[in-house]
């Protein structure tokens, strides 16, 4: 047993971090805020070339053949860079939808409301990034259906919560073309939870780093505010939260790759639960550490907070994940 990140894994993550810093600096990402198309198609293909989408695809299928553990490290970096767009769905779709693997086709995903569940039949289906999508997939327990995004009866919503996640409302979701069955759907739900959680960890860390940097430079009462325990402890809690969530995500990813070591579905649920919480709470704390400036649009603190809330609605909400974990405790 050696649960330390290997040298190769560190290099992989650092390579992606450099790519993100060079190709997706925050200024250029923010240039498309509040528009209905936020995916940079050339950048998306570069991510494809770097292996982001076909990392886990078998080599004989044209992929890299790595595990979810490596993918989780990569997606933590993508989350840290706040890159907008359906990164996780496009990764999941590699091998199923032509062109997803190399980034030439952008694939979105939405979950079909469960009949009888709270909200079903009242709340409309909300689809992210519709104008950027080449293919929309709909995930349910029965399988995966394919839709032509252009053919969908969808209304763009003004003032999306995350200015880099444009959203559309869909009132009726007809049956689409079935492209995968229940087994693949279950795997996507699990792997999607792990990779989304990895993005959340990246954002939780980004928020922590931004807050710490500000707390070191901002002087009040003649001292950097990070020297005051009230602020220092907020930052320390952010660091603990992102590290615990990171470990949970990495353990879940390794459990998917090494099924003998535990229950991968439960590990994924726990990781998503903690990572959502870390990203949302750290986003909120980051705003707080920035004081009044944190409430301005200009300071990017709000971006991680808002994106974290978007991702927290995908691949299992807090209540559903906690219930899933609870069922396992009760032997249900």
């Amino acid at each position, binding site marked *: 047993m050696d649960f330390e990140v290997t040298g190769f894994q560190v290099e992989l993550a650092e390579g992606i971090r450099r790519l993100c810093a060079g190709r997706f600096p925050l200024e250029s990402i923010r240039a498309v805020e509040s528009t209905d198309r936020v995916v940079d198609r050339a950048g998306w293909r570069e991510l494809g070339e770097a292996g982001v989408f076909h990392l886990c695809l078998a080599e004989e299928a044209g992929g890299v053949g790595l595990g979810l553990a490596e993918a989780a490290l990569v997606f933590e970096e993508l989350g840290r860079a706040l890159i907008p767009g359906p990164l996780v769905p496009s990764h999941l779709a590699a091998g199923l939808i032509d062109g997803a693997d190399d980034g030439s086709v952008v694939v979105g995903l939405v979950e079909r409301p469960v009949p009888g569940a709270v909200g079903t039949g009242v709340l409309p289906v909300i689809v992210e990034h519709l104008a950027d999508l080449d293919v929309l997939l709909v995930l349910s327990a029965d399988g995966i259906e394919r839709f032509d995004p252009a053919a969908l009866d969808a209304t763009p919503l003004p003032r999306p919560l995350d200015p880099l996640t444009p959203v559309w409302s869909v009132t009726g979701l007809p049956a689409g073309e079935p492209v995968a069955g229940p087994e693949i759907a279950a795997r996507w739900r699990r792997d999607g939870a792990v990779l989304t959680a990895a993005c959340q960890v990246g954002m939780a860390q980004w928020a922590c780093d931004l807050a710490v940097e500000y707390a070191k430079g901002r002087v009040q009462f003649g001292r950097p505010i990070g020297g005051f325990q009230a602020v220092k402890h907020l930052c320390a*809690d952010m660091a*603990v939260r992102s590290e615990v969530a990171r470990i949970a995500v990495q353990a879940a990813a390794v459990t998917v790759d090494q099924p003998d070591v535990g229950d991968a579905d439960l590990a994924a649920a*726990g990781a998503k639960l903690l990572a959502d919480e870390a990203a949302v709470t750290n986003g909120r704390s980051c705003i707080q550490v920035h004081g009044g400036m944190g409430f301005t649009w200009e300071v990017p603190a709000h971006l991680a907070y808002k994106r974290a809330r978007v991702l927290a609605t995908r691949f299992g909400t807090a209540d559903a994940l906690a219930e899933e974990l609870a069922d396992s405790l*009760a032997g249900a």
Partner: protein
Amino acid sequence: MDLRYSDAEQAFRSSLRAWLATVLPDLPKKPSPEDWPGRRAYDTHWQRVLFDAGYAGVDWPVEGGGRGASPVEELIFKEELERAHAPYVGVNFVGLLHAGPTVIAEGTAGQRARFLPPILRGDEVWCQGFSEPNAGSDLASMRTRAVRDGDDYVVTGQKIWTSHAEVADYCELLVRTGSEDSRHRGISWLILPMDTPGVDIRPLHTIAGSTEFAELFLDEVRVPVANRVGEENDGWRVTMVTLSFERGTAFVGDLLEAIELLGASVELARRTGAWADPGTRRQAGHLKAELDALWALTKRNVSQAARTGIPGVGGTYFKLAYSEARHKLGEFSLGLLERAGLAAHDLEGIDGSGLLPAGTMVEDWLRGISLTIAAGTSQIQRNIVGERILGLPKEPQATAAGAKG
């Protein structure tokens, strides 16, 4: 990142498990928590059983008489003992985890030969005299004074939070040998025989109602200079060396116990009907996520120790997150007991379904309150994370004048 155990690690686990199955049924009955002589006898007997089977000092280096196990084997060792409900390290805690490792690293050949074997065999029990009433989080401000007089130090002062003092044979004692304001540069590490004249022990009653700790009053206690470990005034470094022995496994038993307590709480919730409430279920599910993550963090910390030989920052993260998770777990189980939790006593359910574990749960909740305090309060831990890991500006340091004041 590999969570699979190697063949050698699995072999270590299975032979340990098989051995535990043969010895545990023959152990004497556990003494009551307040029967200190009984507890000493029970814990040291268990240590002797471990010794006879070659499991004493499993994490100690071979040259110190230990087994020299890898950090991963140490993790397996603690995991298997906890899962089998083997006795806790108990009164042997300070000897095995602090004093012994210090003597191994910093003691003379004579000190090693004299003091290590009795710790491993369970013949001698140690306690710790570090904290003082006025030196808690700020340990370097300690004032217990040692004055050289011939071949002895004459020690006068007061120590606090000394676990198992009533039954200890020796105390690892930090004393001030430097000037009053020398802080961490003027401290020495002594071996104090507890039967020396001038040592007075007064038990402290904790909020859990136990006498886990004691105060130690030292009035002109003569300690041979030969009992000093390390150089005079170098005791702070000597102590820090010991702390680096920790390989990420300090809380393995506690964490597994918490996971078990969560299971018992869920069972209780199902008996009382509280499980029908989504709020109860979600709290339990959330706690499971936290405890599972902490188990994974333990494996990460152990893996880092195995690679680098030194504990990483993960131990601080672990302590902060674990102590809070444990508080939440305590509140959760107490909430399930409702008014049956108003006494720390197992009582019969009136439906005849058996005992309600109020004794364990209330006791555990009370003891859990110490977790955000003991071995560095959560506030000090957050300072450490903020300053040493995140690089935020330091707290104001005590000055020479401040230390005097």
